């Protein structure tokens, strides 16, 4: 059963094309990671699916209805930006306020306990630390016993222990049949939780596959070396980044690049070859749509 769907959706802001005929579906019980840099279009996609915005063309569906209608959102949970919590209200009051919108909300004590917030219930949200705010924001997504939640960078900025705690909570929700859409450019988060990754860049879906497949799809290696001079024009370099003397090259064929470096008698030192992280894989996929220099700058 499909819980959320975008069908050939385009969204413009004036002249700016934020989403370009995107089709995206989330099945019941899935845990999907939406990966992309800022401005790639992933927040726009989430805003369309959660009823905050309307597509310029194409159709969006949430739980079988138009997400802009309140009744379609009865089983939806979303994390607010933690900077947006009403600062003068206490944690317990914010939970009460959000609960009032749902038919059968989770009892407050149970929710607070599940997210380790029991001790914070009397604290004003404006006085919480960044990590505490983040936990409150994630907890709010689960107040209404949702069938589907959209979590925006749920564990960015948390310490390791708090992060594992939340990951366990998200996994438990999915194990009970819940559906999760996770947006992030924080990769450990997506690798830890999601099996399916949808990569968004330049307003388009660039890849939609398993975490392993997305990584394997590009099989990128990072070749790092120290070099004072400039590098000759070698084939197969998908991205380059210079950090003082240190040069980091992204390539699909590390063996060939190393042979070329030797053949061209490049006077490199401290050669290092590492397998790709998801982030580097992602950079290579988006590279088709952006000049290598832009990537080198962004990296």
């Amino acid at each position, binding site marked *: 059963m499909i819980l959320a769907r975008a069908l050939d959706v385009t969204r413009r802001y004036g002249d700016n094309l934020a989403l370009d005929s995107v089709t995206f579906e989330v099945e019941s019980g899935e845990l999907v990671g939406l990966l992309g840099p800022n401005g790639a279009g992933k927040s726009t996609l989430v*805003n369309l699916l*959660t*009823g*905050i*915005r*309307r597509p310029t063309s194409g159709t969006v569906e949430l739980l079988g209805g138009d997400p802009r209608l*309140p*009744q379609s*959102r*009865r089983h*939806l949970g*979303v994390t*607010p*930006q933690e*900077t*947006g*919590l*009403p600062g*003068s*209200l206490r944690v317990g*009051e914010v939970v009460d*306020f*959000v609960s*009032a*919108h*749902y038919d059968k909300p989770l009892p407050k004590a149970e929710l607070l306990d599940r997210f380790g917030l029991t001790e914070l219930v009397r604290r*004003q949200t404006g006085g919480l630390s960044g990590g505490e705010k983040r936990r409150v924001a994630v907890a709010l997504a689960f107040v*209404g016993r949702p069938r589907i939640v959209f979590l925006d960078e749920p564990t960015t900025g948390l310490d390791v222990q708090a992060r594992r705690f939340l990951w366990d909570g998200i996994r438990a929700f999915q194990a009970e049949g819940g559906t999760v859409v996770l947006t992030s450019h924080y990769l450990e988060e997506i690798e830890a939780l999601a099996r399916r990754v949808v990569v968004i860049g330049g307003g388009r879906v660039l890849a939609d596959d398993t975490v392993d497949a997305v990584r394997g799809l590009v099989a990128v290696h990072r070749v790092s070396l120290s070099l004072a001079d400039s590098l000759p024009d070698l084939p197969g370099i998908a991205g380059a980044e210079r950090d003082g003397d240190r040069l980091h090259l992204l390539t699909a064929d590390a063996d060939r690049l190393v042979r070329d470096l030797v053949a061209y008698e490049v006077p490199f030192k401290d050669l290092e070859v590492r397998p790709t992280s998801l982030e580097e894989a992602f950079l290579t996929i988006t590279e088709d749509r952006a000049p290598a220099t832009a990537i080198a700058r962004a990296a």
Partner: protein
Amino acid sequence: MTSLALTHAKFQLLETARIPIALFGSAFFPAAAMLAFVVPFVGDNAEYATFATASMITFSVMSTNLFQHGVGVSEDRAQPWDPYMRTLPAGALPRFAGRILSGLTLMFVSLIPVVLIAAFLTEATLTSAQFLLTAATVVVIAIPFILMGLAIGYSMPQKAAVVVAQLLFFPLAFLGGLMTGPGMAPGIVEDIAPYLPTGGAARLMWAAVGDFPYDFGSIAALVGWIIALGWVAVWAYRRDEGRRFS
């Protein structure tokens, strides 16, 4: 839906109450003006004191609504909490109704000191029938100022909204004849005041508290203001929604 509107009103009031200086500010100026101008100068004369109190209440109704809704709405629009609330399973109406309700509540709270000062420190006096008529009139004259506030709040960023609310409220008060008693303002003010929202509102208040005659030209102008300001408020709301949420 109604209970959700009350929930929104309750939490908005709670947020205001947590920063008591905001509450204090809206209650302070009308009360201070009563003590500084009304009590010493016309406090001994029942008729003048009653009219002056009615003017002061009109002034207070204007300033609380203009700031509550003008500055309050533009502040809320700047918060990321606003788009989050649009993902909750409720339309825009409970929020909107809650805002009006909390605005009216705060307005009445800020009027209490004015009424108490008038009752105990001046000769101002009303029959209970007049008091009820005046209370009803206060709700009616709040409408154009709520709409004016919403029009400002939905059409401007926060900093501009503060400035515009401040720029509007003093000239409106002076030209509407709120600084002077009925028939005592300078000529030009007497000529235009009946047709300004402040002047029209004050005339309704004077008619409610004393034997000031209802002026139908002025009432028609006030209705015209309500329609015009309502139109601008709806336009600004739709434009804002279209820009950020469509």
